[in-house]
């Protein structure tokens, strides 16, 4: 072992309690960071999966007027043919069409404003599967062609249960009053208060008929096999299926706030690291300053017998670097144990037994950690760099010592 490393390592353990305290603080910092990163990555992975994978899809096709106006007439025509073409397109995992409208939903006794969504139940299973969120009755594909599933809040308001009938009254695309009778086959709790209070899910053809929009939808949702290939898939969909008359966008173009939120993940992680390791850095600074102050005479001797200022500086930096390395080893061990728990068991984020929702989309309230390599190496690199940075000042002080002055110190 090189002499400087040997001295640095042995010096580290001269003040065992102080070194252990510093190492412990930094190891806990690394462990905390790794756990926080696992949770953050888990939350964002889940959000991404639900918001992008299930709600937005990787690619969306709209009428160009839809994003700004969201008018009933702003539709995508020839839906059946386009869906067949999408099914045949390489890189497409699933595709679905959605038709939506606001209208009046009337039960036997009362009525309420509602948001109707027409979907193909099988195709929708691959996108947003509400099947498992049905709390009473069944999903729409298990009922008659005019089957509907309603949100739990709306069911309560309209006093409707599976087997009851619901009337839709709205404006149809041909200018007439669109109306349709649906048989309620299920009640769903989506986790989103808004959707539970106003949502009605029906088969796409039934809603197309009610709105006089045959073979049309307001959006096509395409899920690719690889999220990183979303932009390439967009281009393929635009070129081969949608054509220039329609607006084809990747998920991040369709929902910039979602993209921004998902990108903010790294900012959140950066903030955690900054806070944790600012404190840890002060710990190292304190330790190294005390080491240098206490060993002023000894450092003076080293300089007197010929150690260059650069080597003295290197010695102090090495000691700090070793604190960082030892802390990293302990911290990663601790962090991996916590990560293991977070991955296997997870954290229940539900408040009072209620589910989690974001942007109207329900999430599983148990967040499981996701361990990415950067969630391990980033804190380790950061802690070693912080240790070295914190040692620069004490190191410079040691390097600049005048031997004769330093050796006078007791």
């Amino acid at each position, binding site marked *: 072992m090189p002499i400087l490393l040997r001295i640095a390592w042995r010096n580290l353990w*001269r003040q065992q309690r102080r070194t252990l305290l510093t190492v412990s603080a930094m190891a806990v910092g690394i462990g905390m960071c790794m756990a926080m990163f696992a949770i953050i990555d888990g939350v964002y992975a889940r959000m991404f999966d639900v918001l992008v994978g299930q709600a937005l899809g990787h690619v969306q096709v709209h009428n160009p007027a839809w994003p700004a106006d969201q008018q009933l007439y702003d539709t995508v025509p020839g839906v059946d043919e386009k869906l067949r073409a999408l099914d045949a397109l390489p890189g497409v995992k699933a595709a679905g069409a959605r038709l939506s409208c606001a209208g009046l939903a009337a039960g036997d006794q009362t009525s309420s404003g509602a948001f109707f969504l027409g979907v193909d139940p099988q195709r929708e299973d691959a996108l947003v599967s509400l099947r498992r969120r049905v709390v009473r009755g069944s999903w729409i594909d298990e009922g008659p062609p005019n089957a509907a599933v309603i949100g739990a809040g709306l069911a309560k308001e309209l006093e409707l249960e599976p087997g009851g009938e619901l009337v839709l009254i709205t404006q149809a695309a041909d200018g007439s009053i669109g109306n349709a009778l649906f048989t309620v086959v299920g009640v769903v709790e989506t986790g989103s208060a808004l959707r539970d209070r106003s949502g009605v899910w029906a088969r796409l053809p039934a809603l197309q008929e009610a709105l006089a929009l045959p073979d049309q939808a307001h959006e096509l949702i395409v899920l690719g096999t690889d999220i990183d290939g979303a932009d390439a898939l967009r281009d393929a969909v635009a070129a081969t299926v949608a054509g220039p008359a329609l607006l084809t966008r990747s998920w991040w173009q369709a929902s910039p706030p979602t993209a921004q939120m998902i990108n903010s993940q790294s900012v959140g992680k950066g903030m955690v690291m900054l806070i944790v390791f600012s404190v840890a850095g002060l710990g190292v600074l304190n330790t190294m300053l005390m080491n240098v102050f206490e060993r002023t005479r*000894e450092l003076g*001797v080293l*300089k*007197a*017998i*010929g150690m260059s*200022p650069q*080597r003295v500086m290197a010695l102090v930096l090495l000691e700090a670097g070793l604190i960082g390395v030892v802390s990293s080893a302990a911290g990663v061990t601790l962090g991996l144990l916590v990560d293991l728990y977070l991955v296997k068991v997870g954290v229940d984020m539900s408040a009072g037994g209620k589910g989690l929702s974001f942007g109207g989309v329900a999430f599983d309230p148990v967040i499981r950690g996701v361990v990415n390599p950067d969630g391990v190496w980033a804190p380790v690199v950061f802690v070693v760099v912080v240790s070295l940075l914190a040692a620069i000042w004490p190191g410079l002080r040691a390097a600049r010592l005048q*031997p004769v002055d330093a050796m006078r110190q007791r």
Partner: protein
Amino acid sequence: MPIVSTRQLHRTYLQGEGEVHALDGVDLDIEPGEFVALMGASGSGKTTLLNLIGGLDRPTRGEVQVDGHALGALSSGALSRLRLDRIGFVFQAYNLIPVLSARENAEFVLLMRGVPADERRRRVDATLAAVGLEGLGDRLPSALSGGQQQRVAVARAIAGAPALVLADEPTANLDSRTGTELVEMMRRLNTEQGITFVFATHDTKVEERARRVIWMEDGKVQRDERRG
């Protein structure tokens, strides 16, 4: 050519409002192979002179040359290199590196110089034998007596075969018998290996064994006595 040469060497310290003239115009030449004792009362300037010769301190005025190098012209790094290559130090308080064993302390200068391992081992073995520390090389300084620690310090000072060894009160912390043994040992090294020794000391044992005694008072050379 003298191994050490000082010309009109002054060192003034600020003390409170006033100045203390620790050295006041010292002219001195020391030839290679000399065994010199700087004697004088506390505050006479002998340690200050030793520090200036060793490049551990800078003079207020005047010039020091060691082994042909004008120290005033050297940067801090170059001074370190000169000390590493040409000067050995023995201090009153031993000043060993506490985390290194006796052997590692003796080896330290050679390691700093980048001497190959085989040669390092050979030289350190010989040096530890020369100072009578065979078998004690693996001990940490804390496991050695004062006399043994000072022998390690001497081993560290001479292991690199320096041109000059500067020893500041090397026997002050040792009992009489151990001090005598240490002085005898350094005298032997001076005779056998031709190493130049310069001591700052109060110790009459050193004075008795010195070939040259320089008496200092109030920062000046009072008397310079050469002995056969």
